[in-house]
């Protein structure tokens, strides 16, 4: 019984948030990216009338929908969780943080949920172009929702547009424009969207490669393959440049996160501000045994100059202790006095994010080269294409681990520590119960979801009869029911 009583609600609530948020983000990139790709494919069909585009719309539309359902239901948990597990956080920042969430709902979620229904069930009920508009509105709505949730997240990384109200014991909004144009959000938004496009593109490539390696649906799938490969490369270019500007913003707003990304303990300038490709150190990360380093690169990533200075963890720790652990700093001083994130997590997450992103792009470059001018492609290449589908997804997930673990010990940088945000009245047992329930339900659904998506992918594009007289396809045959 003692064990139960000693359960720490803070640790459990953090694990639950990490677990449910990462799990939710398994589905978000495919929703964001695939809605856009399906909209493009359907546009291609409406404009050219070629059946292969319609087949691809239906095939990837189905994969999109299986995934969409999970994104929706796991998203509700996210919204409720702030109040359930982080009620002191919610009352402290709700005045500011709630607004983007509410706009997200009113402006984006309603639009998305309404028009996705029209798209699924409206093939034979809407004129062709109106039906096309419904998938575009779904895509636009999902992209808008990403913006508002990232604006909310950006407030946690870099609070702007607020003032403290000591009487009410909370932060209050002073400038909604500043909140919605937070530089962190402006950089993180394109980074998230382009990374999501990469994942959707890699899924398209994988499905196409699987069929092409079996010489099925060759004409249709070749189109899908080239479309996916090019889209992935475009996605990578966007992810690369937005990631670069995010690095700059991060150094300015959360220098500790950049220091933690490199495990940089001593402030360094110029050539000394080097970036290690990998390193082996003592388990706590404080001492390095061996590393491969590129001089100047950390300086360049952080400041876009070669002789810039990057603040180290030790200096920042001293600076933050002085600033945030004085009198009256109940909410800002961590109980263990440490302002340093867990270094091995941030160090490796940062490298895996970048490394996997680059790897995914390389696969596509090689893929474009191998499939140029209808050459025959070796079987191993098809296998690589199929198995590389999850690479951008994993990169996105470790990117989020980096972003959120690198924010620690803060729940809102400089305003409130994570430990002071947790719900005061919720017992460890209650959080444990919900953590176990979510883990079990989510685990089971992940298996189901994966099976259904692969089954839909393997089933391939639906057979659609093309009328010989050149008239339009039978739209009544396109519509579906549950």
């Amino acid at each position, binding site marked *: 019984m003692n064990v139960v009583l000693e359960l720490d609600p803070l640790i459990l609530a953090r694990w639950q948030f990490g677990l449910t948020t990462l799990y939710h983000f398994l589905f978000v990139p495919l929703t964001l990216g695939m809605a856009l790709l399906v909209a493009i494919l359907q546009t291609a069909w409406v404009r050219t009338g070629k059946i292969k585009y319609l087949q691809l719309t239906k095939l990837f539309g189905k994969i999109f929908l299986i995934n969409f359902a999970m994104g*929706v239901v796991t998203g509700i948990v996210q919204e409720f969780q702030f109040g359930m597990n982080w009620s*002191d956080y919610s009352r402290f920042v709700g005045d500011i943080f*709630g607004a983007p969430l509410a706009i997200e709902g009113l402006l984006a979620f309603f639009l998305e949920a309404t028009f996705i229904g029209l798209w*699924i069930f409206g093939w034979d009920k809407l004129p062709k172009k109106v039906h096309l508009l419904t998938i575009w509105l779904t895509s636009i709505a999902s992209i808008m929702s990403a913006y508002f949730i990232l604006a909310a997240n950006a407030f946690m990384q870099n609070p702007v547009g607020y003032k403290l109200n000591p009487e009410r014991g909370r932060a209050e909004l002073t400038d*909604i424009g500043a909140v919605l144009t937070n530089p962190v959000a402006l950089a993180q938004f394109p980074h998230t969207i382009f990374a999501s496009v990469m994942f959707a593109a890699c899924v398209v490539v994988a499905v196409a490669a699987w069929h092409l390696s079996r010489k099925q649906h060759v004409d249709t799938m070749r189109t899908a393959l080239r479309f996916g490969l090019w889209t992935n490369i475009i996605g990578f270019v966007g992810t690369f440049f937005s990631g670069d500007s995010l690095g700059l913003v991060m150094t300015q707003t959360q220098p500790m996160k950049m220091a933690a990304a490199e495990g940089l303990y001593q402030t360094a300038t110029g050539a000394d501000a080097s970036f290690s490709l990998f390193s082996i150190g003592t388990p706590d990360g404080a001492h390095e045994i061996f590393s491969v380093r590129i001089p100047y690169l950390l300086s360049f990533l952080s400041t876009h100059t070669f002789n810039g200075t990057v603040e180290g963890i030790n200096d920042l720790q001293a600076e933050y202790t002085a600033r945030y652990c004085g009198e009256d700093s109940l909410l800002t001083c961590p109980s263990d006095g440490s302002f340093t994130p867990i270094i091995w997590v941030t160090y490796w997450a940062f490298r895996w994010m970048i490394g996997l992103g680059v790897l995914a792009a390389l696969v596509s470059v090689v893929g474009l080269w191998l499939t140029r001018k209808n050459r025959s492609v070796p079987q191993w290449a098809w296998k690589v294409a199929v198995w590389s589908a999850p690479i951008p997804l994993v990169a996105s997930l470790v990117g989020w681990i980096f972003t959120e673990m690198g924010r620690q010990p803060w729940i809102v940088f400089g305003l409130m520590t994570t430990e002071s945000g947790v719900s005061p009245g919720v017992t460890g047992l209650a959080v444990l119960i919900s953590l176990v329930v979510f883990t079990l339900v989510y685990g089971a659904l992940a298996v189901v979801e994966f099976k259904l998506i692969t089954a839909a992918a393997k089933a391939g594009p639906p057979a659609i009869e093309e009328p010989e007289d050149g008239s339009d396809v039978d739209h009544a045959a396109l519509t579906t*029911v549950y």
Partner: protein
Amino acid sequence: MELQYIWFFIVGFLLIGYFVLDGFDFGVGMSIPFLSKDDTDRRQIINTIGPVWDLNETWLIVAGACLFAAFPEWYATMFSGFYLALLLILVALILRGVSFEYRHQGKGEKWTKWFDWFIVIGSFLPPLLWGTAFANLIQGVPMETMDNGGWLYTGTLFTLLNPYGLLGGLTVLLLCFTHGVVFVALKTDGDVRVRARALAVKSGLITILAAAAFLIWTIIQHLQSDTILLIVVFSALAAVVLIGAWLANFKGREGVAFTLHVFTFIFALGAIFLALFPNVMISSTDPAFSMSISGASSSAMTLEFMTWVAVCTLPLVLAYQAWTYWIFRKRVKRTDIVAAPVH
């Protein structure tokens, strides 16, 4: 008129919208075992809400987000306080949501059966628990104020399971059930429609009894309230339209019955919000610990901005959602189901 009160109204509007819309989804889900004889029946019933259940559920998400933005104290205290009840609601909503999509994707009958049960359970738990939670809100829950100016719910899940709370849960459950059955009658034809109409006659009677008991109990609890006159008027109107809905269904006027059901939700939930006013959570520990609308609300600047957003978006939202219902206005027939491919 202060903006806090406008937001109390907007949040109330969104919640009523949620219960009116997702309410019939719940009823449709719950009634499947009662109304179906084979899988085509089940699919016919599920497809009445196929295109719209997701947008209906979104009303909850939007109401939750608006609660967070406009009344952070209310959101924080209620959501952390009603922890396990909300956990159950979340799991139910997850199971229901994926089941619509997944039930027909498998190969075997067993697979489909599993997800059909998830739909039933996922449709049964949320109205029961929401009803219980709301009844407790107006009855009062053990609650104190904290040093940081916030409120703290000091009860447990079992505190909520008192007779009045459970009657509230049962009432909302039955209202949603009959609401959904009437919706099935309105949106199908053939055997399912006939069965639905007959079932709504029976379940409607039980619903009327439960609702009457709950509303009378509510009135008795709030005799001292400033808003008692309005509570009585709204309760009476709810009772009248609910009985009217039953009569309309009895006479085969499904559209009228459904419309009157919508008004039942509006009046009954309106009475609940009036019983809450001018508080958002009532403390049974000490009335001094009750959370008032102004004590729970965001700053004037946030509310002003949010008012602009709501005023600009809500009319548009209502318009395109109404249009969606218009597009899918036709009854779902067995032949539609047999002919069309599953997606």
